């Protein structure tokens, strides 16, 4: 029981310590706002922040969805042909290793729509873990099971459905967990670089704006929304993983031994 409450207790303890530190140390709110003030600011500004939050969510999940589609599709092509993989994998690596902050300005120049540019930047960050994991996963089917499917004269479609997809699923989920977090990071980073003002902007723009005006509590309020989003993504993908793999995969088995 205590074990289960431990994370929550730690968090509450830290927040209390922060609150006390600010109050007892009389730290000005433009330097470090107390958690209570952050919450109050979030409450007061929720109307304007919610629109930006929604925008960031759209970029994050839009890009993640496209990363899943693109990553799995490219992985399937790679799994079908070693030659195509050898030819194209370096391109994927180049995309992956180039810091997104460095190429985002270029993308913003080349792509006329800011939203599309942000989606593209985020996609570049998010698709690689899904791609590389799914490629490995599609090749991970046990050799004896492959031969069993050959013996029973499985069609390519049956092989894909009953053997390759289930074998690849744990790998894909692992990639998805990484990409989920990365897509939020990618979205915020790209927004920071885009730095646009106006209605169609995300939480990163709110943080930048607040920073120019030294509205530190508002920066923290926007940050809080981002953290909550990240935690939510993490939780929901862990839950998805438990639902899909819980009964059979080693990563989700909880044994006493």
């Amino acid at each position, binding site marked *: 029981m205590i074990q289960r409450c431990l994370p929550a207790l730690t968090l509450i303890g830290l927040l209390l310590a922060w609150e006390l530190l600010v109050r007892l140390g009389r730290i000005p709110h433009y330097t470090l706002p107390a958690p209570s003030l952050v919450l109050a600011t979030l409450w007061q500004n929720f109307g304007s922040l919610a629109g930006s939050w929604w925008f960031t969510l759209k970029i994050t999940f839009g890009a993640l969805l496209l990363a899943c589609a693109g990553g799995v599709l490219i992985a399937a092509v790679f799994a079908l042909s070693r030659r195509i993989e050898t030819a194209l994998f370096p391109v994927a690596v180049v995309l992956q290793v180039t810091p997104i902050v460095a190429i985002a300005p270029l993308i913003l120049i080349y792509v006329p729509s800011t939203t599309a540019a942000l989606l593209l930047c985020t996609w570049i960050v998010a698709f690689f873990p899904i791609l590389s994991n799914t490629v490995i996963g599609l090749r991970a089917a046990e050799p*004896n099971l492959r031969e069993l499917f050959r013996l029973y004269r499985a069609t390519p479609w049956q092989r894909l459905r009953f053997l390759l997809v289930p074998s690849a699923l744990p790998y894909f989920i692992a990639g998805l967990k990484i990409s989920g977090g990365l897509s939020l990071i990618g979205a915020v980073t790209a927004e920071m670089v885009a730095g646009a003002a106006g209605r169609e902007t995300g939480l990163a723009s709110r943080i930048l704006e607040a920073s120019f005006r030294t509205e530190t509590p508002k920066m923290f309020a926007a940050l809080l929304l981002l953290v909550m989003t990240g935690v939510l993504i993490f939780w929901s993908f862990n839950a998805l993983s438990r639902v899909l793999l819980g009964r059979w995969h080693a990563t989700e088995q909880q044994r006493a031994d």
Partner: protein
Amino acid sequence: MPAPIITLDRVDKRFPNGLLALQAVSLGVAPGEFVALLGPSGCGKSTVLRLVAGLEPPSAGHIAAPALQARADAPTAFVFQEPTLMPWASVYDNVWLPLRLAGMSSAEADDRVTRALAGVGLADFQQAYPGELSGGMKMRVSIARALVTRPQVLLMDEPFAALDEITRQRLNADLLASWQAAELAVLFVTHSVFESVFLSQRVLVMSARPGRIVAEVAIPEPYPRSAAFRTSRPYLDACNELSRALEAAHADVPT
């Protein structure tokens, strides 16, 4: 003697790396016959099975296994050394797989799947997952999956080698019961002299590098064979004869 259901006629197998795994292997298995292929690890026993199953082509010689090609719904039944189950599927779905691949729906296959599982004593474990079963139970699922297509030929590649002695003896007895219940020819690969004698009607002894069949011992003991057979005179005599044959075949091979 009826026409054999499996025939190998002077079959060679050379691997791409140049290794000659089999040399002039000839053997026949009659319908309904239980034949063991005995030899140490690495002598090419498993390669014989893989050739019969059509998983690999021979380099020379001729293989005929008419039953395997004749009926689409009863292809080669193969039991690997590992249980080779799909960990993401229930025991029921694992046994259903061969019928499912042949296009049978769950409703059509249900009767056969249920009976195959009951036949190996796992009627109560239909919804369990392989990860929740012991090694012996997994192997029982693997055997149920092989038998669910009602094959005429069953190829087994050291299926019980990884099991403890008690489990292995139980599975041996149950395998014989399944074999007698069906009209089934079994080609059983093993490195255990005792297992080969207990199970089969005929034991073929293989030598290593290149694999050749160097001796053949008939075990004319009637079935059903009880545990008492394991301590009987004919059993011990056959074990002795086979041990000597193995010894002679591998006298010049460093181990």
